[in-house]
């Protein structure tokens, strides 16, 4: 048996944890640079706000209706998320962290000795009490059915947030109520094709002939159909698979024409990516830099370009990556254009320690470099940091706007909740 624990409107709910006054009020969270809505509470939804609505368009009406908006506060969200995952690890023998606000639990071993519905409520209540986060719990014999159950738990308030799909009868009932596009793994394109052949709900998909699905669609969808029938095809992934690439990109707070500022930005992204790469104990052999102008400003000359810089030897040294990022930028930058986004991507990964010997860079030197990077990473986890490279810039004029950000209640001494 599997359970899916899924937070309800995660970002918006995080904003409520330290703000009891927001309990019944509409809450939305905005993307980088306060561009558009990336999360919204039930109350905001009922005002007609939708995901991806541009903030400048809805701002006035939304505020008049008593709504409140926040810039993304990733420090807070990450902390609440890790607390929730901690709690789940205490409750279940094996968990897979599926995203910042969802986790699958493997219930084999405990499914014979506890009532699953009661277990679901225990998860829900513990998380609510310990963190303030409302969650839904879906339980089913496969991961895909656990997702179906979670859909039901969110959709129907009378379930009180927990749906147990152990019984075939209940599976059938809910699958018939569930539109096929809501099924885990069915994308928009696939859903249109399915509708064309008359498949509109999840139950119809489960009933399709597997060979027919393989021929007409693909093996992945056949797997989904088998999972909907209760056959386990997708197992729990406890170890997150090592990344194949790392991308760091941001939209600027304003349009940038100055090469120096662009260099600062991509150096900063390269340094951030380097930290991620070292955390994964990987090295890379390719760094790509990209920039683009604002495609929505039709009046501006448009330009988007990507340039890749290969390394002779795989590296995860911040200095190498920064140098390559600047080199790449100098290749693609064009004068007098107004750029609004830049980014870097690392790819072609190797395990740390797997490299050829280098004639010109002796082993000792390499050890020293590695120690230096390790030391910088360590210092940066403490309040002695951050140590950054001058190339990353000091003022960071290009960096994004987060004007309506809530305090970092749990990660910054200066931002602790004040109580009278």
């Amino acid at each position: 048996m599997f359970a899916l624990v899924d937070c309800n409107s995660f970002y918006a709910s995080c904003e409520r944890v330290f703000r009891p006054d927001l309990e019944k009020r509409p809450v939305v969270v905005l993307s980088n640079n306060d561009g558009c809505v990336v999360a919204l509470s039930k109350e905001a939804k009922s005002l007609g706000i939708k995901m991806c609505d541009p903030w400048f368009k809805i701002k006035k009406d939304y505020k008049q209706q008593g709504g409140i908006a926040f810039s993304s506060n990733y420090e807070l969200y990450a902390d609440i998320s890790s607390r929730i995952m901690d709690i789940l690890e205490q409750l279940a023998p094996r968990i897979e962290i599926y995203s910042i606000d969802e986790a699958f639990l493997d219930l084999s071993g405990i499914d014979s000795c506890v009532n699953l519905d009661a277990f679901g409520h225990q998860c829900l209540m513990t998380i609510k009490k310990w963190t303030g986060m409302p969650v839904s719990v879906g339980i089913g014999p496969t991961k895909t059915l656990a997702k179906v159950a979670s859909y039901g738990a969110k959709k129907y308030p009378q379930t009180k947030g927990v749906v147990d799909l152990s019984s075939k009868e209940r599976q059938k009932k809910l699958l018939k109520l569930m539109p096929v596009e809501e099924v885990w793994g069915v994308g928009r394109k696939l859903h249109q094709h399915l509708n064309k052949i008359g498949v509109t709900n999840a139950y119809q998909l489960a009933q399709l002939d597997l060979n027919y699905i393989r021929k007409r669609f693909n093996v992945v969808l056949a797997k989904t159909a088998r999972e909907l029938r209760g056959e386990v095809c997708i197992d729990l992934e406890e170890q997150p698979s090592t990344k194949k690439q790392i991308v760091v990109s941001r939209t600027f707070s304003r349009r940038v024409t100055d090469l120096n500022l662009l260099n600062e930005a991509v150096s900063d992204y390269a340094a951030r990516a380097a930290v991620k790469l070292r955390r994964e104990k990987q090295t890379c052999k390719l760094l790509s830099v990209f920039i683009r102008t604002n495609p929505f400003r039709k009046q501006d000359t448009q330009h988007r370009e990507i340039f890749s810089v290969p390394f002779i030897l795989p590296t995860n040294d911040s200095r190498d990556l920064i140098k390559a990022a600047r080199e790449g930028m100098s290749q693609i930058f064009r004068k007098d254009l107004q750029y609004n986004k830049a980014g870097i991507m690392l790819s072609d990964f190797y395990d740390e320690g797997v490299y050829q010997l280098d004639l010109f860079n002796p082993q000792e030197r390499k050890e020293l470099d590695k120690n230096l990077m390790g030391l910088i990473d360590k210092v940066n986890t403490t309040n002695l940091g951050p140590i950054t490279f001058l190339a990353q810039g000091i003022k960071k004029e290009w960096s994004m706007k987060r004007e309506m950000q809530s305090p970092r209640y749990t990660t910054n001494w200066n931002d602790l909740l004040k109580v009278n």
Partner: protein
Amino acid sequence: MNVKNLGHLADVNKSTIKIPIFTEKVKVGWPSPADDYIERPIDLNEYLVNNTAATYLVRASGDSMVNAGINDGAILVVDRSLEAQHGKIVIASVSGAYACKRLQLYPKPLLLSENIKYPPIEIKEEEDLEIMGVVLAAINQF
């Protein structure tokens, strides 16, 4: 007041940095006779925190709880996982904001301040009382 020395403190914020004091220097020469006695330094977190996932730090503001030993600016260690019992100091939601008060459940539910200047807050309906957590410790800095 009697005080007792508990030993040296671990650096709470920096507990991830381990500086190997003994290992590097003993490659040559005589090993330190203290090597066998290395113990983990005392960790303040261990003393103050029972349940990491449910523990939050908040800052007290004002003098409404001074008689409970909570000064203006004190850091409060709040455990959300504990049941709020009669007589406990809690963080409760009072008209839309969190406040630190002593909880009285009988004869009638009240939130009490620990300073004569502030009158008790009545809880009219049980549903109106929303408690975030129980205060386990206050850290005052002098």
